């Protein structure tokens, strides 16, 4: 298929692309830096968020349970809560009463109610600490989780003290855990075929999921490139001279599609590079091995899948692109095709397509994007052969669609669909 004409046409397209720094910048540098940037910015900003917590002590009591010989003081609870929360970087103020929650600057109020010390130290009642959390404050949810874990810690200490006191009274040995939580569950991650896996597999799967999401970033620049290559050439008045050359319009269009796919592939590689930087910082932060998360074969599969995914997308869009009046209407139509792709890739981020029942999955096989997702998901779950099979289906589908689409290309339509 790569004839001399095709080589010449590709040479011109790629030379033009190479000199189009704006397009190159947006399709390479942006994906390369945006993913790590999103990660780093997110982390940095999360650190910067201030959360104002008010603690209200309505109990103001120090109570001793004489039977168990346990003394609890609400002041001690408040002081320790404050100390821990401040250590986590929260702003803590001590308030007199619960009206403090009316202050909009307060994101979260912790209320130690009346009777807390009595209830907490008793053997036949429990004590509650009330957390008032303002709706819609993202960081308050994080603070809430911290408060819960501090309170759990207190609760466990009090429980230990109670059980030890009982054990003394009964004069038998009691392991606090045996009384408090005699039954619990424990999970260990294994592979699809029950094999031992390292904990890194979890991160590797996450990496794969983000890769699937990444397909949606690469189809858009490629599609814009095709639109610009066909309608842009028409608007810039260069296409008529080109179409008059003794090459078929199909060859001209194919060269543009291949150039667009190459651009898409470069975008995909930039995307992967960005993701790798992100994962590297991630693995550093978590202390997990980078090489165990990143799998070269997976990256190779991603690149091949990206290539055919782009090809299939622009092939589907092609008959519409050659028939519309201007760049804007072409972009709208291509937008519809790419939105379908985006829906698939976004759902592929959290749905395991491979786990869908046959009667749901089979009709989805008609959509090429299903195969794009399954290539990655099957591979990650250890079905390597099936992964290759999906690549094959995707490749055949994209070539067939490309062939059919290029049949619809017509010199007269390209020239006369003018605004």
């Amino acid at each position, binding site marked *: 298929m790569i004839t*001399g*004409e095709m080589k*010449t*046409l590709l*040479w*011109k397209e790629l*030379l*033009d692309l190479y*000199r*189009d720094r704006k397009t190159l910048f947006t399709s390479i540098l942006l994906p390369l830096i945006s993913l790590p940037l999103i990660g780093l910015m997110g982390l940095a900003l999360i650190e910067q968020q201030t959360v104002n917590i008010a603690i209200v002590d309505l109990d103001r009591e120090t109570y001793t349970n004489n039977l168990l010989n346990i003394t609890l003081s609400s002041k001690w609870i408040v002081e320790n809560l404050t100390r821990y929360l401040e250590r986590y970087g929260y702003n803590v103020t001590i308030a007199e009463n619960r009206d403090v929650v009316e202050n909009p600057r307060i994101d979260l109020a912790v209320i130690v109610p009346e009777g807390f010390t009595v209830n907490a130290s008793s053997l036949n009642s429990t004590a509650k600490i009330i957390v008032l959390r303002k709706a819609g404050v993202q960081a308050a949810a994080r603070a809430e989780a911290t408060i819960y874990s501090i309170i759990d810690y207190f609760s466990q200490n009090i429980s230990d003290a109670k059980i030890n006191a009982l054990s003394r009274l009964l004069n038998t040995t009691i392991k606090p855990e045996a009384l408090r939580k005699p039954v619990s569950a424990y999970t260990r991650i294994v592979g699809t075929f029950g094999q031992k896996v390292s904990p890194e597999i979890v991160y590797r799967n996450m990496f794969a999921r983000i890769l699937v999401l990444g397909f949606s970033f690469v189809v858009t620049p490629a599609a814009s490139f095709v639109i610009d290559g066909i309608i842009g050439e028409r608007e*810039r*008045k*260069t296409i*008529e*001279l080109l*179409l*008059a*050359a*003794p*090459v*078929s319009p199909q060859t001209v269009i194919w060269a543009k599609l291949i150039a667009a796919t190459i651009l898409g592939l470069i975008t995909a590689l930039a995307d992967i590079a960005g993701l790798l930087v992100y994962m590297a910082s991630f693995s550093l932060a978590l202390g997990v091995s980078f090489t165990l998360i990143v799998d070269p074969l997976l990256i190779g599969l991603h690149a091949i899948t990206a290539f055919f995914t782009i090809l299939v997308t622009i092939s589907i869009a092609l008959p519409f692109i050659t028939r519309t009046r201007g760049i804007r209407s072409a972009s709208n139509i291509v937008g519809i095709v790419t939105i379908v792709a985006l829906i698939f890739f976004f759902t592929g981020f959290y749905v395991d397509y491979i786990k869908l029942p046959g009667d749901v999955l089979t009709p989805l096989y008609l959509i090429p994007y299903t195969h794009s997702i399954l290539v990655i998901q099957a591979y990650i779950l250890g079905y390597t052969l099936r992964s290759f099979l999906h690549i094959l289906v995707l490749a055949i589908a994209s070539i067939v669609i490309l062939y059919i689409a290029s049949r619809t290309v017509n*010199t*007269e339509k390209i*020239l*006369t669909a003018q605004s």
Partner: protein
Amino acid sequence: MVREVLIVEDIHKIYDGKVHAVKGVSFRVHSGEIFGLIGPNGAGKTTTLRMIATLLKPTRGSIFVNGVDVVKDPINARKYIGYLPEEADVYTRLTGYEHLLFYARLYDIENVEETVRFGAKLSGLGDDLERRAGEYSKGMKRRLLLALVLMRKPHLAILDEPTSGLDVYASVRVRRMIKKYVSETGSSVVLSSHNMLEVEYLCDRIAFIHNGRIIDSGSVEEVKERYNVLNLEEAFVSAIERVGGRK
């Protein structure tokens, strides 16, 4: 014997089944001849030239270039045709030289180097060929485009308003380029124009086209004599008035 490089036989073009733009145009262009199509805006010149250039399919009628049926075998016919569209422009990011190289290679010419050298000479752009064409003036762009079309020495060059939008000096340079090319290569040209001076200077024979029909044709001298006028402009106006003026 005069060889006929172009034969146009009763061609029609109806756009989208509605606009009847060309209604039975016939003419012939001999080897080494410059033929001019003259007509008001919307007369059907561009439509006719695009059909000859194989870019539009005639609704009816036939066209032969160098004996090749343009409708049946467009890709083969294109090898004998050089077509400069009415509103052609350059690739702004490619240099003039890269344009020459691109089109020489695209036409699958055996001696690309020689063709490019000839194109460079034709264009008269000299060192400017190394600059990006986006930086060229209108006149320079037109000379480059014309060189792209003519460097392969096509048997038939189709030039749709080759000097429109150019200033006097730039127009003269383009006209000289066309004239010199024809006298050196013996190729044929069919061109359209609104400029009677240009037509008188360049064309051996002309046809007046109006509302999709040829209303008169002949050599420049013949036509002037027929209407008993001194210049083509007056002949053109008389011809149009005779068929009932402009709609």
